């Protein structure tokens, strides 16, 4: 059970170590933090800033508990209390748990999968900086003196322009940034899990942790895209006077609730599923045997991810929706309880009779099981419609979701922290301090939150800054407040433990716990270039595998050998087949730079400029952001040259292509991810369109005539037709007919421009605007987004055309995949255009 895959001996097939190290070394100096794209520092950034936000939100929670300790307290004004619960909730939900998990995932996933970095390192960097900017924008409201008081759920009309000001606009924008960061990490996680594993790591051999992350990634993309679309609509209500959620102009407040909870319910599982991944990683190592009922657990995770999107209405039982549809959501909620049950019993079965050592990670796991089972059971209770009618929006709910989020998510995170700390900084956390921290946290938590069940049942609503003594709740509240301080002390002990142990902690070897996954096969802390040689994998527990006779697949061995200290001059990783894990290609990763962090910064400044009505600043920064995104996406010619030079030898040795297209190449997966996200966003918009129509007495609203078919038909016809020159260019590219490629691309550009011109000529002649009513808002938003996307597609075509003319030596190498993704995106736009025409222009006639 000890590690067998030690770092390889320099053999005759290995590349030059010094050169290799230099390629993978990160940037130096203070500014390295802005230039780095390595998963280590980026993941650390995510975790560090999220913990800062966590401490802030925790402090706010303590202030609120002081206010509620006794009835009729005047410690905080109602205004401040409402600000605090808004910022506490939204910080914890948007700025702490998900970014913290993303950081930990970013650090742990590549070594677990046996690869050298995440699939899109530039995106990691951009995501981290957008998340941080989003967080700062959240907290800008303190500087503006206008902290939002809308709750983390921001229900309109209370969160709309009528009742809130600039602080809420900033908050919404910050939320949007955090969501963009989330979506990008989600895409990156999915592609990394599916494609960039060690050779031989089939889906069946992929660690359970990676399975949970894969499911989470898919969920993040779907849920966050929905919320991003809704946030954008609400922000537009604030900034440019659209009417999506204003009931006085045809908008529907309930539409927000549907969209919000379509995000909000999966969000809970987005946090919980990785947490189960931590538990499923730690339990087998302490039990010293593989997880029992492994397949059932995977099925349960996938089921959980899937079902969680069918539950959103269970947050809306009191909004007056038909009882039959509520019953459906109750049934779905109960099914998800079974998925949790399977996992709990699998963990117990794995531990059964193994007498695991009660080290700190295991203690947190035990605490997790205690609290999570309780929280899960109250979760089943609130899925029962009549009972939910009573406890919905009371302290019972507050108790329930803190049991789930602290017990079910934070405890596993702390277990993970104690368990993987050696991989983060090479040292163990102090066991003694860890045990103190655990017991203080565990006791404090239960003292703080158990009484809240009773407060809710006895009639205390949520989000109240005070309560009358006649409710008889003073005793419970006082106990809860005392518990909250104990809980805070427990957390601080772990923070102190991390700080102290970072200097004085006992040095950990590569594998202090006897772990089964690949990260324990390499040194602690994780080395710069993660794997000198990407290891061949023949087992679900590669570090426990001692049977050498299994190592016989020549394709796997050959691919692994070819990566020994190689490629030397560029960052290369292996891509594998999704299902069987056989190596498919060697792909270059970007080498990093300032462009992603600069783009994030510029987008932030630009949006702040727009909100503060400093339009010139906004315009300049948005231009700079665009330029830096182009710089970031533009293939780095000198780097490409290095790749072209060493590719033939590498291809010869590994038997794998370097320059390739389709699902064997990283850019292809990037564009598939983008297309999926945009499709989801338009699905949300179409859903909103039909939702508004369903609940409007007339459609279009407010006497607006049904849209003209001819002019928009011409515009969208031009867009559909533009797929033809694109197809022509693509064909000619394959045959190498230079002038036809140019002709095709220019033809596409001209037709794209004609589409935009025709569309805006039509829009300019309309009688109504986006301010008229919700119909007008929806109508214009879809058109604006469509024309924006066509603009992006045109930029892709322009870039391709430029490179095709100027860098002919690359036509056989990287450019084919550039041509492929450009064309894929353009075909997608043509199809999307047809869908938009159908929904916006044809459907009102049906």
């Amino acid at each position, binding site marked *: 059970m000890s590690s067998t895959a030690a770092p390889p001996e320099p053999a005759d097939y290995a590349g030059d170590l010094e050169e290799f190290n230099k390629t993978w070394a990160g940037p130096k100096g203070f500014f390295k933090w802005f230039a780095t794209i390595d998963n280590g520092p980026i993941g650390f950034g995510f975790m560090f800033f999220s913990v800062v936000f966590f401490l802030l939100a925790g402090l706010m929670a303590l202030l609120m508990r002081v206010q509620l300790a006794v009835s009729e307290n005047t410690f905080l004004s109602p205004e401040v209390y409402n600000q605090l619960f808004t910022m506490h909730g939204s910080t914890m939900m948007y700025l702490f748990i998900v970014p913290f998990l993303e950081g930990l995932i970013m650090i742990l996933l590549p070594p677990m999968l046996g690869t050298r970095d995440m699939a899109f390192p530039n995106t990691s960097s951009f995501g981290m900086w957008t998340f941080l900017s989003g967080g700062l924008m959240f907290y800008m409201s303190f500087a503006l003196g206008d902290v939002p008081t809308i709750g983390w759920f921001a229900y309109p009309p209370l969160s709309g322009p009528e009742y809130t000001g600039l602080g809420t606009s900033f908050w919404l924008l910050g939320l949007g940034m955090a969501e963009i960061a989330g979506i990008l990490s989600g895409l990156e996680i999915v592609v990394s899990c599916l494609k960039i594993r060690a050779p031989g790591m089939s889906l069946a051999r992929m660690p359970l942790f990676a399975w949970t992350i894969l499911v989470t990634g898919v969920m993040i993309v779907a849920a966050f895209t929905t919320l991003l679309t809704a946030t954008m609509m609400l922000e537009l209500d604030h900034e440019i006077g659209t009417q999506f959620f204003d009931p006085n102009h045809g908008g529907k407040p309930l539409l927000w609730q549907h969209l919000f909870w379509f995000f909000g319910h999966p969000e809970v599982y987005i946090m919980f599923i990785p947490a189960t991944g931590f538990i499923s990683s730690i339990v087998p190592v302490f039990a010293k045997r593989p997880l029992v009922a492994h397949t059932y657990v995977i099925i349960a995770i996938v089921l959980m991810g899937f079902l969680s999107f069918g539950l959103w209405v269970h947050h809306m039982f009191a909004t007056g929706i038909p009882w039959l549809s509520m019953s459906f959501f109750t049934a779905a909620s109960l099914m998800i309880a*079974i998925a949790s049950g399977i996992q709990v019993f699998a963990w117990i079965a794995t531990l059964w009779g193994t007498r695991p050592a009660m080290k700190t990670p295991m203690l947190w796991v035990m605490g997790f099981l205690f609290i999570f089972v309780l929280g899960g059971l109250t979760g*089943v209770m609130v899925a029962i419609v009549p009972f939910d*009618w009573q406890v919905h929006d009371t302290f019972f709910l507050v108790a329930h979701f803190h049991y789930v989020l602290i017990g079910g998510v934070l405890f596993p995170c702390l277990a993970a922290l104690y368990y993987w700390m050696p991989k983060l900084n090479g040292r163990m956390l102090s066991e003694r301090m860890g045990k103190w921290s655990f017991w203080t946290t565990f006791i404090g938590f239960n003292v703080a939150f158990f009484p809240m069940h009773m407060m809710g049942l006895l009639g205390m*609503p949520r989000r109240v800054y005070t309560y009358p003594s006649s409710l*008889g709740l003073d005793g419970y509240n006082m106990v809860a407040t005392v518990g909250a301080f104990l809980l805070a002390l427990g957390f601080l002990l772990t923070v102190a433990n991390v700080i102290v142990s970072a200097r004085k902690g006992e040095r950990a070897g590569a594998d202090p716990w006897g772990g089964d996954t690949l990260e324990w096969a390499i040194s602690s802390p994780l080395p710069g270039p993660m794997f000198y040689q990407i290891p061949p994998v023949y087992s679900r527990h590669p570090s426990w595998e001692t049977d050498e006779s299994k190592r016989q697949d020549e394709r796997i061995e050959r691919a692994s050998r070819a990566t020994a200290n190689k490629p030397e001059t560029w960052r290369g990783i292996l891509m594998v087949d999704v299902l069987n894990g056989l190596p498919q290609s060697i792909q270059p990763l970007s080498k990093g730079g300032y462009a992603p962090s600069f783009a994030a910064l510029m987008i932030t400044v630009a949006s702040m400029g727009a909100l503060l009505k400093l339009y010139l600043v906004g315009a300049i920064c948005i231009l700079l952001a665009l330029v830096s995104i182009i710089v970031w996406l533009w293939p780095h010619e000198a780097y490409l040259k290095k790749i072209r030079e060493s590719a033939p030898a590498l291809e010869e040795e590994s038997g794998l292509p370097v320059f390739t297209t389709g699902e064997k190449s990283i850019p292809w997966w990037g564009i598939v991810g983008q297309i999926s996200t945009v499709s989801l966003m338009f699905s949300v918009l179409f859903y909103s369109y039909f939702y508004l129509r369903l609940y409007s007495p007339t459609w279009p609203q407010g006497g607006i005539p049904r849209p003209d078919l001819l002019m928009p038909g011409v515009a969208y016809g031009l867009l559909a037709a533009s797929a033809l020159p694109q197809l022509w260019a693509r064909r000619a590219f394959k045959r190498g007919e230079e002038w036809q490629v140019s002709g095709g691309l220019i033809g596409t550009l001209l037709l794209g421009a004609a589409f935009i011109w025709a569309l805006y000529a039509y829009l300019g002649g309309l009688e109504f605007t986006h301010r008229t009513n919700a119909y007008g808002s929806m109508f214009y938003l879809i058109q604006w987004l469509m024309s924006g996307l066509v603009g992006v597609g045109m930029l892709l075509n322009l870039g391709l055309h430029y490179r095709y003319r100027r860098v002919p030596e690359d036509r056989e190498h990287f450019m084919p995949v550039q041509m492929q993704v450009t064309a894929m995106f353009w075909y997608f736009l043509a199809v999307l255009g047809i869908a938009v025409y159908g929904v916006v222009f044809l459907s009102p006639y049906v």
Partner: protein
Amino acid sequence: MTETMPPSLKRGVGRILRARGVWAVPALGAAFLLGGCEGDRIQSTLHPASEAAAKIAWLWWVMCGAFTAVFLLVMVLLLLGVYRRPSGEGTGPPLGGTRFVILGGIAMPTVILLGLLIASLETTVALRLPEKQTLTVEVIGHRWWWEVRYPDQNIVTANEIQIPTGVPVRLVLKSADVIHSFWVPRLNGKMDMIPGHTNTFWIAAEKPGEYRGQCAEYCGLQHAKMAFYVVALPPEAFRAWVAERQTPRPAPEAFLPGQEVFMQAGCKNCHTVRGTAAVGRVGPDLTHLGSRISLGAGEIPNTPGHLGGWIGNSQRIKPGNLMPRSFLAPEELHALVRYLEAPK
């Protein structure tokens, strides 16, 4: 030390101290569940005063019992699994790993949850709006008070809903601004009040009495102080109440100075007093203010002293409410209070 403890905590601790050994856990639970006396429980879901609320409370007790058993079972299995010395043959859980997971993780929850689903559906159906209703009341949520209208009886009041006992009362729930939620825990569950959208709901009370309710959907600054009372009257008393409300009497001469203050100090811009020129609809209808239980939507008792304080500066009592401070001379204020509290 026990002297400084809040009463419910003291009782709870007392209970724990008297309990011994294995009974400590259920006793702790019981202390939490039953802590406090009937009198404190004016807004408790566990002290139902209607059939509907009783059904929900019953559902709670069933779930509470069943889930406590499930929780204890899982914890016992966990502790047994972790701490028991492995016996001779192997270290697997009883019945073997996979079968253990299928039985515990799939079969057991399925059986329990199916039963629960049936109970839930049954209760949901039983809680539907009864076919036969005798009375319709329209309740409109405002920031932060409740407008109450009896459309068939042509009565308007605020922050208080009079209903007859023993019959279901149909509620039409609306909102004038943001989302609120109507909740009287001892009578029924809650239902949201959404602008641009009408929800129907119902309540019934078995016995005469005052039942406190509170807004349950966060609605801004004073969400915490948006309460109201349902006053259940025996049917004859309710009929008398309706009759009294339907026959407006002009204020007796003695109160006319107060009425004058009301008209001149700007009160009438926001408030209505039926039978006078005051028809404002921003704030509550004040026609029968004297008969109400509370002022400021459940915030303070309705006494002349409190009313004077409220008119003088309601911002101190409920900061952020829409009523501005007034600067009346003492005798004006006195007359105004007398006028408002007078039976009309």
